[in-house]
């Protein structure tokens, strides 16, 4: 159906709406669990929303220079892991066998790359370039005996839990 209108239709980009704020708590270091926050944070930034990522516990691997390039995916305990061809589940008894983790990691990396989605370090570059804020958890740094020099350079600071709570006043929070 065609409707005629003479007033120009202009998208509403909500330029005045600046108060929305979102924060992601990244607590996992498995490759597959690194992506949800990165994808959503990137989307939030593209919508002009103030975005923070707080890396804690296993999520620290996402920002630790020596580990961030080499996150792994394991089919162990993941019943949604299927064979590349056909709709066949990988039996859990096979999941811990030698070679399964590298194979599964390569598979997931290839699938992500095929969509033109960057690897974790490059994705963090994009998030920082888009104005996203990265924070490292004090307790995790102390547990791992890591200092700022050990962390990805886009991380703004190592902050404690209270700092994070204060900083995310009024923000929407997502724990991953």
């Amino acid at each position, binding site marked *: 159906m065609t409707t005629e209108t*003479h007033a120009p239709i202009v*998208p509403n*980009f909500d330029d005045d709406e600046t108060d929305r704020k979102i924060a992601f708590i990244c607590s996992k270091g498995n490759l597959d669990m690194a992506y949800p926050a990165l994808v959503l944070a990137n989307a939030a930034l593209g919508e002009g929303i103030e975005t923070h990522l707080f890396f804690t516990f296993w999520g620290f691997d996402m920002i630790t220079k020596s580990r961030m390039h080499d996150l792994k995916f394991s089919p162990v305990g993941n019943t949604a892991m299927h064979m590349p061809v056909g709709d066949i589940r990988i039996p859990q008894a096979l999941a811990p066998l030698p070679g399964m983790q590298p194979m599964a990691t390569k598979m997931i990396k290839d699938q992500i790359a095929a969509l033109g989605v960057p690897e974790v370090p490059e994705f963090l570059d994009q998030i920082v370039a*888009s104005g996203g804020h990265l924070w490292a958890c004090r307790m995790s740094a102390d547990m791992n005996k890591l200092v700022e020099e050990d962390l990805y350079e886009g991380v703004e600071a190592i902050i404690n839990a209270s700092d994070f709570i204060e900083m995310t006043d009024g923000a929407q929070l997502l724990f991953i």
Partner: protein
Amino acid sequence: MPVTTINGREIHVDDEGFLTEYDEWDEDLAKVLAANINVDLTDEHWTAIKFAREDYKSQGETPTIRRMASVGGVDTKKMFQLFPKKPAKKMSYIAGVPKPHGCV
């Protein structure tokens, strides 16, 4: 689909106002579209807009911010400077192409 009048011409748009007919776009129209959303076009804007149009034509999809940087040569920081806050949507609107379809 609604028809709206922009720059004295009838233009087909979607419900939000994004152009739906690739060939109804021209540079004069882009100037009006940019003015509608308070973007002052510079040479750098044109580089981005022209790449987006060419890429849409060849790929059938509007480039994402990521693709603008990796293939179009307009880095992410620049995109946010050129089209503040919502770079992909604003660029698409001015370039007369749909909003990007991909997530990243």
